[in-house]
């Protein structure tokens, strides 16, 4: 069952409190972020229904928002998602080569997840790091000035953290 901890519920209340009285729908985007973090990195129908109940919304109000924004995952994703930017400025600095390198290295295509469930590769549009290209988002942070060597290091780092946490 999907259920926030008491601590997270407090957080939800704090978020709702940022908006005017009766406008708790405004808390939807931040609360969906929170739910995605808490419940396995994606938003299942169950999770979305739970958020709807929490914010006193119709489930459809949550679905239509979750499907609009690119950061909400509507399917399970790997533990580490490589979101590589492919827009113009990054392309000028070799993002295509980086994407190819990751594909080869992990043996997956764009939109796919490695069989061990560790890595998902996704291409995304400009993330606001054009001057530090090529780049990708990994969780909360950006990894910039990517080279094949750097990609190797990042993959190693993820494998190590995953092993340590298992």
């Amino acid at each position: 069952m999907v259920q926030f901890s008491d601590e997270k519920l407090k957080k939800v209340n704090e978020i709702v409190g940022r908006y005017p009285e009766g406008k708790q729908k405004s808390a939807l985007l931040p609360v969906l972020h929170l739910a995605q973090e808490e419940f396995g990195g994606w938003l299942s129908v169950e999770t979305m229904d739970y958020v709807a109940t929490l914010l006193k919304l119709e489930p459809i109000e949550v679905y239509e928002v979750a499907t609009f924004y690119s950061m909400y995952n509507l399917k399970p994703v790997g533990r580490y998602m490589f979101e590589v930017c492919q827009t113009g400025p990054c392309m000028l600095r070799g993002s295509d080569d980086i994407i190819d390198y990751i594909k080869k290295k992990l043996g997956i295509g764009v939109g796919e997840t490695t069989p061990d469930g560790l890595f998902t590769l996704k291409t995304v549009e400009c993330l606001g790091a054009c001057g530090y290209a090529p780049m990708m988002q990994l969780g909360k942070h950006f990894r910039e000035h990517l080279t094949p060597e750097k990609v190797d290091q990042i993959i190693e780092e993820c494998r190590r953290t995953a092993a340590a946490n298992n």
Partner: protein
Amino acid sequence: MARKLLLEKANVPGIRGYEVYRREGGYASVEKALKNMTPDQVTDEVKKSGLRGRGGAGFPTGMKWSFLAKPEGVPRYLVCNADESEPGTFKDRYLMEFLPHLLIEGLIVSSYALGSKATYIYIRGEYAWIPDILEQAIAEARAAGFLGKNILGTGFDCEIYVHRGAGAYICGEETALLESLEGKRGNPRIKPPFPAVRGAWDCPTVVNNVETLAAVVPIMNIGGEEYAKIGVGKSTGTKLISACGNINKPGVYEIDMTISVEEFIYSDEYCGGIANGKRLKACIPGGSSVPILPANLLLKTVKGEKRMMNYESLSDGGFPKGSMMGSGGFIVLDEDQCVVKHTLTLARFYRHESCGQCSPCREGTGWMEKILKNIDTGKGKKSDIDLLWDIQRKIEGNTICPLGDAAAWPVAAAIRHFRDEFEWHVDNPQECLVRNYGLAHYADPLEIATPA
């Protein structure tokens, strides 16, 4: 060295924290405004400064503020646009990451001027680590008495909240942003009513860019008139430019708007020249939506004058022969870059980001991407180039919000200035897969039309 008003203190160790920021003179503008000035006097000062919105459209900020409706008993809101998603643009991120207190200070003064007791920073979701930095700064400012109830004993109450988006360029458009703030899909609203009358939760609202609101701090500190003396003509003050692409020193630079484009690209103080000793082919000087210019038209206007880094000069020549300051996202292409391919990535971007409400935008962006992809991969026909032209013309001006125009312009400008490169792709379907068209004549000196 150009005068710096925003980034002057960016390298002071510890400037992210309140202590150092305050020691360096931070929050003086809040004291000045709240204690000694009325809200209208603050707005007047901003009017005098000539400050123009730094989010892309360049609308005079003081004027925008004076349009805010002030019905009795209805709250008013200030919303800071930190959605920053226009390809090539990463200046607001820099400000928020390294000088969070500068933004908070600007927000407090601006909130006072507008009478906003709850001010929101709408930040793009991908900047996921920045809300922590901003919230820390907000907490510090509150602890020091600059936020909360009865600020500095003046009776003014104000809170600032950070609201994270979730991945949608369209939410940078102010009415889509307000929809998103209200927890809905980011579909732009039909205007009028304008946000100044009916904005967030149907209340009067001002939406301003991060850099615009940060600039209010130096305006208060040195005075609007003094600020207006920096720069030239209607390009007053300083402007942040985020430079990227094939240059030696990509990054965020603060310029006063009196330097030339040539100096900006080649001097060591700024971009440091084209990377790897190559030559300049083209540049998109104001973010992905503004027209691309070949090197010759970039450095000189059709009148043969040096092109300068300011609103007027960058747009000199109109759309056929000029471009725009836009959001200050400066994208440089060297001689080995393919304009067709670059334009394709932008078309893909706009197709991806179209909210889908208007058919010309929803369908047109998809068609443009498809046709450009064909041309780029050697499967195009000559007639495709005309078709592209036709589609972009039918999008422009026929949509609810300016994203349609923003998608049309890059395609139009690419065909206008680089048609031979598109044709070369069609004529050389094999060769275009393995090499680029190159510099061609784009760097040749301009032919100056002599008046009859």
